[in-house]
């Protein structure tokens, strides 16, 4: 009961990373010293089961203790606060209880997990090792400094923090739904166990085996019933059904959830059914999932028969449109297959009326069917089926899975996923088409679906095309379908779930079944006499089922449209890429990890709206894709260049950083999902996760921005998200799959806000996601964005606490031109001013968030975004090949700049707060300038509680136009700052970016 998913996950991860020893060590440590960070972590994890929030509460405010008791408080800001923010004291109080209990469990599970997940881990050994190392380091540090409230915030420590954070999130979620808590927890645990079992060996046997009644509507209209173990995965049921049907070539088929008859949700066979369906009994429909492009290549007649049944349903329901003549022809083959040769005596005039060949069947059509039936004399049922399929497969909509969407102008269009790629329809007209080889990346964010396509012949640059889906779930569903279709038809073998890559966020869903190539290969090995099967009549009586169970599309569409965006996540955008940049900016890989406080989030949200407004209005749905445009866009050009430089930056950063962070980021994505699945209260969890994601999204935005303009934006909140996902790292593959599978449930769908899939493998750096926000507010464009990076480092030496506060103000001018220059000058002159501004921002942060700058003794840093990052995007749009000519490339990238401030802060010390509290010993300010940077160093020494503290605040103003790589300059500045004060640590980085908006024309 007490064991929470979160903890397990964490344990797993750690254990994986460190290896058995490490895991063990970790646990031991935790046991030994409750106070050390490790224990903290454990605590937080454990806390889930019991009053989870206490720690949080403590952090956020004195009243926090109440929170412990009052679950409702968990909903407050506190839940957003990273676990590590909690005061150690509070930990101590809380920790002891659960820890002891949990440990054993955790360990065990960890071991299991480790074993089971090893293969996956192998893929990312590097990252894990590093992480492990980091963790261990952190532990050590934690021990030393625990007593002191100011923990050292070394970059290394972050991983641990991240874990904590994840846990905390979960915890919070739990709190919110206290009622269900107990029950759910239990469930959660079970689930996890089940997973483990599935993957490895059932170490913990389920206590009770419950069965669930399950019904599957088969293609012939009959229903198959069975009882399934409650924790059975989809594959179990699917295999049962195929066995019942005597079907060997089953990879073309799948089970649709009948729960939502209006949506075409496929049961993920790799995940537990119960996570994907909510209602009882479990109702499914057996359907063709991947239509074989050439049915004649199927090995067995029985397979073709089922395909025929599916197509007859498709045709009769109107999902597969065909002409009058084709209706008649296909109908005649149906008659031949089911009735045999035409018999004038047996087949009177009315026999045909019992069949349904078309949505609107007329007497004329029936007459034609009969006429044609007569001509088929001698055809065996199998031959008739083959003829049927040969004709059906040529229908233009054969095997096309349609999804409603809107183009940039809000015009209703349809996206059709098929074996060859993605088709875009407006009404019944095909207006564009993207073959799989042309698509570089498929992603979704919120309710937007994006494809990144290769440059056309005469183009040099890739373009991204976005579509608006009715809601997030629809976007995710489409994304999954695309991933599956691409994998099935284009790949030889399924792609492994994504490894932790730099900057990857979102769903890790991948198609896990066999590909067409594999299934064909397998089919060749089929060695059995052709199975006998009875062709049931497709008379109308049985047909009544057609529309309802199977043909969900139309209804779903309607619903989807009416439905609004789901969940809190809807407002926010997230992307993985942003994260990477953040790192760069920080200079220290670790700094970014800081967990975002709630306040930042809130602010972000608002800002995002505003920002997005701009972005959205013009950018989001660009009219026509650039795809076919032959003219190169300057802006694009610039964008690419910038992109490249950013990539370099990232690389450099990575190199300089001891441990690669990227992996963690990726992992982070997954984690949220896992949490959900595992977490007891799905909804709560989702919410939390979504918010996190939102933060991430912001970062993305930033990245985008940078890419486009070379302007720097501050990224911050990602930290929290990352942590969460970080925990799940190990699990990621399994977890991710779970989450995706659970899509049927609302909770799941909401989890993964972002999904990314790259049909072609490319270097991580190359992947730049362009994301946009859609907000409706219209914000005027600001002309300047000031970027201030403020980093505070605290080093504890004995009783002496040194805080270094580095503030870097980077001013990125939008672009060349006089304007930019002007701005630059201004910046220099206004340096002091900016400082003030930055300060103000910080203050605001606190004010807004109450919690944002909580005093924390824990190592991690808090990242606050005072202003939400502005999303600037190059946009995308609907690909209407027909109109492409009209579209000018210039329209695409629109960047408006604004002022943003992002603060990365280590929890321990609130810079200003700490200073205030103590006695000021001395203060001095030093200013130095170089070509593009102006550094102002402000050193204050204070004595506080007998501890002397030196705080260095550096304000670095980076001024320049597009020619300067601001990111690099910033990274360099931070690096230098660190080198100058090796004994200090950065506790806070505030990036304040002021960018001048360049008119598009200028660019």
């Amino acid at each position, binding site marked *: 009961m007490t064991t929470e998913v979160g903890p397990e996950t964490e344990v797993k991860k750690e254990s994986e990373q460190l290896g058995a020893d490490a895991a063990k060590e970790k646990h031991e440590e935790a046991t030994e010293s409750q106070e050390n960070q490790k224990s903290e972590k454990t605590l937080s994890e454990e806390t889930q089961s019991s009053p989870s929030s206490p720690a949080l509460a403590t952090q956020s405010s004195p009243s926090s203790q109440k929170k412990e008791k009052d679950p409702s408080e968990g909903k407050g800001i506190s839940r957003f606060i990273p676990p590590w923010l909690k005061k150690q004291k509070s930990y101590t109080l809380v920790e002891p209880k659960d820890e002891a209990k949990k440990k054993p469990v955790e360990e065990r599970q960890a071991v299991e997990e480790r074993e089971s997940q090893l293969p996956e881990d192998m893929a990312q050994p590097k990252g894990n090792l590093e992480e492990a190392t980091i963790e261990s380091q952190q532990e050590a540090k934690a021990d030393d400094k625990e007593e002191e409230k100011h923990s050292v915030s070394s970059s290394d420590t972050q991983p641990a923090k991240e874990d904590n954070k994840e846990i905390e999130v979960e915890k919070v979620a739990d709190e919110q739904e206290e009622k269900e808590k107990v029950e759910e927890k239990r469930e959660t645990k079970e689930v996890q166990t089940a997973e483990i079992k599935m993957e490895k060996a059932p170490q913990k046997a389920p206590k009770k085996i419950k069965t669930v009644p399950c019904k599957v509507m088969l293609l012939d209209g009959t229903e198959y019933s069975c009882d399934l173990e409650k924790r059975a995965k989809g594959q179990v049921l699917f295999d049962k059904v195929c066995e019942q049907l005597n079907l060997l070539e089953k990879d073309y088929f799948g089970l649709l959830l009948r729960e939502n008859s209006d949506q075409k949700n496929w049961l993920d066979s790799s995940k537990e059914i119960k996570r994907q369906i909510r209602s009882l009994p479990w109702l499914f429909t057996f359907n063709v999932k991947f239509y074989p492009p050439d049915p004649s290549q199927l090995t067995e007649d029985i397979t073709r028969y089922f395909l025929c049944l599916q197509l007859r349903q498709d045709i009769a329901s109107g999902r597969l449109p065909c002409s009058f*003549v084709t209706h008649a022809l296909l109908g005649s083959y149906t008659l031949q297959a089911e009735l045999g040769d035409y018999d004038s005596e047996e087949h009177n005039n009315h026999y045909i009326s019992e069949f349904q060949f078309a949505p609107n069947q007329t007497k004329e059509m029936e007459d034609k069917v009969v006429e*044609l039936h007569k001509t088929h004399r001698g055809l065996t049922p199998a031959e008739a089926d083959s003829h049927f399929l040969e004709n059906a497969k040529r229908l*233009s909509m054969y095997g096309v899975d349609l999804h409603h969407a809107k183009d940039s102008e809000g015009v209703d269009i349809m996206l059709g996923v098929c074996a060859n790629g993605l088709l875009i329809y407006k009404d019944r*007209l*095909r207006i564009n088409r993207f073959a799989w080889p042309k698509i570089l990346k498929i992603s979704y964010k919120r309710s937007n679906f994006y494809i990144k396509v290769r440059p056309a012949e005469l183009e040099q640059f890739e373009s991204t095309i976005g579509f608006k889906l009715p809601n997030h779930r629809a976007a995710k569903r489409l994304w999954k379908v695309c991933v599956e279709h691409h994998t099935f038809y284009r790949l030889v073998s399924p792609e492994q779930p994504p490894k932790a890559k730099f900057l990857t966020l979102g769903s890790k869903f991948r198609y896990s079944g066999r590909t067409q190539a594999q299934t064909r290969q397998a089919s060749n090995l089929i060695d059995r006499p052709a199975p006998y099967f009875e062709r049931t009549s497709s008379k109308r009586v049985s047909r009544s089922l057609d529309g309802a169970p199977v043909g969900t599309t139309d209804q779903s569409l309607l619903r989807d449209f009416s439905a609004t965006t789901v969940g809190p996540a809807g407002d926010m955008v997230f992307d993985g890429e942003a994260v990477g940049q953040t790192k760069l900016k920080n200079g220290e890989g670790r700094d970014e990890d800081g967990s975002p406080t709630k306040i930042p989030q809130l602010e972000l949200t608002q800002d995002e709206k505003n920002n997005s407004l701009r972005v959205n209005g013009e950018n989001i749905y660009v009219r026509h894709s650039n795809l076919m445009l032959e003219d190169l866009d300057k802006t694009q050009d610039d964008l690419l260049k910038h992109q490249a430089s950013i990539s370099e930056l990232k690389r450099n950063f990575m190199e300089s950083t001891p441990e690669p962070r990227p992996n963690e980021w990726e992992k982070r994505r997954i984690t949220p999902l896992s949490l959900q699945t595992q977490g007891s209260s799905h909804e709560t969890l989702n919410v939390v996760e979504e918010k996190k994601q939102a933060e991430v999204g912001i970062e993305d935005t930033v990245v985008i921005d940078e890419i486009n303009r070379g302007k720097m934006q501050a990224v911050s909140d990602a930290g929290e998200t990352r942590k969460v996902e970080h925990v799940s790292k190990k699990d990621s593959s399994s977890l991710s799959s779970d989450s995706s599978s659970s899509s049927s449930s609302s909770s799941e769908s909401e989890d993964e806000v972002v999904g990314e899939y790259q049909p072609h493998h490319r270097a991580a750096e190359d992947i730049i996601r362009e994301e946009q926000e859609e907000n409706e507010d219209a914000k005027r464009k600001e002309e300047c964005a000031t970027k201030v990076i403020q980093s505070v480092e605290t080093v504890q030496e004995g009783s002496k606490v040194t805080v270094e506060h580095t503030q870097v103000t980077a001013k990125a001018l939008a672009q060349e031109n006089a304007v930019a220059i002007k701005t630059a000058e201004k910046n220099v002159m206004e340096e002091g001013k900016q400082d003030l501004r930055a300060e103000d921002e910080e203050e605001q942060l606190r004010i807004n968030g109450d919690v944002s700058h909580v005093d924390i003794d824990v190592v991690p840093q808090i990242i606050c975004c005072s202003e939400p990052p502005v999303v600037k995007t190059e946009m995308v749009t609907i690909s209407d090949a*027909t109109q*492409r000519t009209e579209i000018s490339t210039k329209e695409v990238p629109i960047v408006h700049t604004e002022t943003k401030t992002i603060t990365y802060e280590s929890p321990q010390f609130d810079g200003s707060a700490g200073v205030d509290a103590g006695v000021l010993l001395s203060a001095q300010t030093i200013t130095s300038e170089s070509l593009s940077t102006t550094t102002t160093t402000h050193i204050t020494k204070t004595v506080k509680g007998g501890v002397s503290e030196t705080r260095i605040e550096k304000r670095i103003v980076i001024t320049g136009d597009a020619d300067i790589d601001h990111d690099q300059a910033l990274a360099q500045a931070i690096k230098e700052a660190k080198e100058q004060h090796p004994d200090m640590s950065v506790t806070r980085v505030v990036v304040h970016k002021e960018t001048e908006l360049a008119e598009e024309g200028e660019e």
Partner: protein
Amino acid sequence: MAGLSSGSGGGSSLGLCSHAVVRALPESLPQQALRIEKGKEVDFARAEREHQLYVGVLKSKLGLQVLELPADESLPDCVFVEDMAVVCEETALITRPGAPSRRKEVDAMKRALESLNLNIVEMTDENATLDGGDVLFTGREFFVGLSKRTNQRGAEILADTFKDYAVSTVPVYDSLHLKSFCSMAGPNLIAIGSTEAAQKALKTMQQMSDHRYDKLTVPDDAAANCIYLNIPGKGHVLLHRAPEEYPESAKVFEKLKDHMLIPIAHTEMEKVDGLLTCCSVLINKTSEL
């Protein structure tokens, strides 16, 4: 069999033809026929001779059953029957021409097609316009040029009419019709002009199609409008513009070794934007079923 079965083999049914509908040219053509830009005076007598030759090839040389509709002096463009109907297999879509002055031309066409027992679909939507000259049927799918004469709605109706086939739209900017610079020159072979607009349109079509077509690029856009037929006993037949008119393009066609090449002069008609395909509607009646 009817239906798609005839389309099996991926466009091999393309060009199969048993009947053709043509219409005589009215004397009002030289003066009143629509034209994109003022050009040379049409020599009516010569135009008539060219048209007679054209019909003669279809009728005598290729053995098609040709329905010759009488000219209507009040309809100066009536010789360009292609714009009045799109026939695919057993179904004929009677269009709603983009030029209001030509709307009455459909009446005679409709009667002619009815006489052939085709399934007639009429475009009654008053928001729709479609000229047959904007419809390129490749044997596998339709491309519909969105031009001054053809709009989206017209294309939609065409898509509704021929549901078996994908219908993709292609923007047409500088030309009267999509087929002003392209046509099918064989199964899977698209003849395309060399102008930028033509090449761009081809790219669009290539992008939109699941199928890869071969292309036959000719120097002259107008020459890219040719008539491909698959006549039993004669094989691939290609009616193309005469070397006297477009010598360079004719050379390209002459490289088609598998085709029976029939050069046809169409000089006068082209002055009023009439190309080879414009002057006939080809129908393949496989049976009376």
